[in-house]
């Protein structure tokens, strides 16, 4: 219904198809890892034993966990490759690539915006003129880098303990890797399924969800309201205006909503299970 009413509106493509595809890989692998990881973290709790049985036993969940881990490493490196290609296409230096308006590298302005946001929260200032990337989005982005490095490396130790100890790693490090892997994952899962969900989808002006990561398109109205600085940038750059167009196709919007809601609901269920386990049963 909404889509038809807005047919005359202009839409801007914030995410290209490649990035959207990578995010779908992130979502599916992340949820798989979270679920199968929680099964073993909370193995003493009945509901996780039941889920494990329903999925075909610990061997199956373990296999899924490892496949999803491989997918994680894949999208991680695909994204690094994407960055290099993008830099090459733009034909700019590494420095300007890293400090430019499109860069996700945190800078002074992010810190200013963080302060300004706080002021806005308490009613002592206007809503900051957010640009292409807000500071919380940059945090999310780097959290993935940090997570993949920490959870990924500790996970590899747990996957190939004999190999790593053969290289000289003390056996106790397997125990330490277990703690780090498990708690860092708890942090990642807890963060994504609460703060990321709220920041991106559940905050009142986006509720119930923002489909831009799946359709790639955002209406200019919304963009102007939400990210005035990016809006201005588009208006001033004819190169970027090439990305303006009509609304996303109906089937894509619909698919985006179905997939998005599934992911959101799964995430919420998982976070509720974690809270339940942590509060009532876990020691």
């Amino acid at each position, binding site marked *: 219904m909404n889509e038809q009413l807005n047919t005359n509106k202009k839409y801007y493509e914030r995410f290209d198809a490649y990035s959207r595809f990578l995010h779908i890989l992130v979502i599916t692998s992340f949820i798989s890892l979270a679920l199968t990881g929680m099964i073993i973290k909370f193995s003493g709790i009945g509901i996780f034993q039941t889920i494990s049985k329903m999925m075909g036993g*610990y061997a199956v969940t373990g296999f899924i966990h490892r496949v999803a881990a491989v997918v994680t490493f894949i999208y991680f490196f695909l994204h690094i490759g994407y960055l290099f290609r993008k830099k090459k296409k733009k034909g700019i230096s590494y420095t300007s690539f890293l400090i430019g308006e499109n860069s996700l590298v945190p800078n002074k302005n992010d810190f200013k915006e963080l302060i300004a946001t706080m002021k806005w929260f308490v009613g002592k200032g206007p*809503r900051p003129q957010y640009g292409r990337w807000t500071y919380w989005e940059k945090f999310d982005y780097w959290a993935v880098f940090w997570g993949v490095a920490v959870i990924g490396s500790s996970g590899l130790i747990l996957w190939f303990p004999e190999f790593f*100890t*053969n290289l000289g790693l003390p056996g*106790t490090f397997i*125990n330490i890797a*277990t703690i780090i892997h498990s*708690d860092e994952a708890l*942090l990642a899962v807890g963060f994504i399924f609460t703060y990321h969900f709220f920041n991106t989808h559940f905050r009142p002006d986006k509720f119930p969800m923002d489909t831009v990561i799946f359709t790639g398109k955002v209406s200019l109205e919304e963009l102007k309201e939400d990210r005035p600085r990016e809006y201005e940038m588009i208006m001033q750059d004819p190169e970027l205006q090439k990305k303006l167009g009509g609304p996303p196709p109906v089937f894509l919007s619909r698919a985006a909503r179905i997939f998005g809601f599934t992911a959101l609901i799964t995430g919420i269920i998982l976070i509720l299970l974690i809270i339940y386990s942590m509060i009532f049963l876990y020691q």
Partner: protein
Amino acid sequence: MRKITSVLFLTAIFFTSAFAQSKDDQVCLDCHSDKTLTTTRNGKQVSLFINGKSFAGSIHEEISCTGCHSDVDPSNLPHPEKLNKVNCATCHETPVAHYERSLHAEALKKGLTLAPTCVSCHSKHEILSSKNLNSKTYVMNIPSLCGQCHKEGTQVSTLVNPDERKVLSDYSESIHGEGLFKRGLIVTAVCTSCHTSHDILPHTNSVSTINRNNITTTCTQCHRQIEQVHIKVIRGALWEKQPHKIPVCIDCHAPHKVRKVFYDDSFPDDKCMKCHGQKELTKIVDGKPVSLYVNYDQFKNSAHTNNSCIKCHTNISNSKKPVCLNSGKVDCSICHTAQVDDYNISLHGQKHYQGDKTAPYCVDCHTSHNAQSKKSTTSPTFARNVPELCGKCHREGKNIATALDESKLGIVANYRESIHGKGLLQSGLLVTATCVNCHSSHRELPKKDPRSTVNPNNIATTCAQCHLGVYEEFKSSIHSPDVTKTDQKLPVCNDCHRSHEINRVDLNDFRTQIINQCGKCHEKVSETYFDTFHGKVSKLGSIRAARCYDCHGAHNILPASNPKSKLSHNNIIETCQTCHPNSNRKFVGYLTHATHHNRDKYPYLYYTFWAMVFLLVGTFSFFGIHTIMWFTKSLKEKKRHKIEKKKVIENAQTIEEDYERHD
């Protein structure tokens, strides 16, 4: 008057002679009362001391030393060092002649130095009359005198037939022994009463008092007119005259064990079968007709085929009409003494004698006239049939099982599914344990009873009947009471393997169960086990994941400090390699029972954990506040937005304009 004179005369002679003799003896004792007087014989030092006092009290006092040592001339002393052996036959001609042909003398001639000579029983210088209460040969002392050699555990007992080894204890329990020891009847038979004192011959010797042909004469020395007592069996016949047809005493009254009585075949079976061969023969018990029919063909195929009816139904009497009237229950202990003794101890027996009708008696398991050997495949006591036999009562709905204890439900069903049951019933392994192998056939007792074969203190030995190798390993393991001295309960076989449900150890059930079993006592290590990978996947149903015994061993569990332990420094890599083929020295450093809650034991884990907690709490707190503030602010904004909806429409217009302007 003449009488008195002669008495005086005789007394005078007696005293003079006595004086003269004791004077001779005094000469001997001049030397032999010296306690240090010794000589060397066959390389050994032998005392030549003689206690003058005890000799003076002996029966030989009158005959003086030279009465026996006739080769000593008191007027020509000292006598030669080596004297001739005293010949008792000089006076005691017949006893010595008897001794010379006796079993004892024969043995001595063969060189068996254990065999007694005169002095072994009568002693040397302190010989007392057999009527003297202090004499070794006094009737009350005879059993212990003979028993010095003829009792269990002596060297002699190893030389005689197995059934003669326990003669002393058998005798003590017999009616004769009881008469002597308990009732002090000195007319009761002792060893010498039947075997004679000196003429002791084997029963195979035709002149022996205990020869089958002579035994009746021997027994009737005391048991006169015994025929009168035995009239119902022998029907007045004189059995001495027909020893080949009629039993002699010992056929029924086992020698030494004399007590139980069973009669022989003088009452032919066809007499019984005249009545009991009729199918309609019944009697009324408690108002109900009970069949008295006996299937004689079946009986003839039973294990008792060679026995006649009266062997078991002993209580028949010619004075009754019919002869078997009120003869009562058969006493199986006539022959099966050991089994019945066991049964009397067993719970079955106890209950039976308390009048519990549900408690089984001999015939309930063995049947009466159809009793068969346990080796016969159709016998209810044949190994394969035992579970069903016991299951007749020990099964749901069959009074006993449920009445006693609810935990005993499903015994038979569980047994059938157990490794023993499957071995027996599916694979047909007759060496498999059935009910009776663990509970014993006749002496089954509840496990609380310390005499029970399934009592925790005895169960390992019970299982060791078959599983000896395992038992030996277990005996030296940390769980053995020989190794660990503790007040706490140590596990025994059935604590881990269970009893009737005993299962294959490589199957899921056992591997799933065992953690709980070990955890019953090892609570803390079991908790930490579940904190680590092996425990976690086990909880998710992994069968392969290492269980307690995969690392610690099963029956051979030893502390890691013991070099033989599977967890010792030298063995641990190999132990881990059973699952982790590339296990190495560093790999085995993995803490399989680690917990991050113990700072002193595992500081690295402890601090890592708290660092992670700090990171999590920090991150969540910051974004928590951030989100709450944002949420409240956004709600306010949204309200404002509704009011200023118009502004959105205006916005749309400006966008158009902006777009056109930049275009």
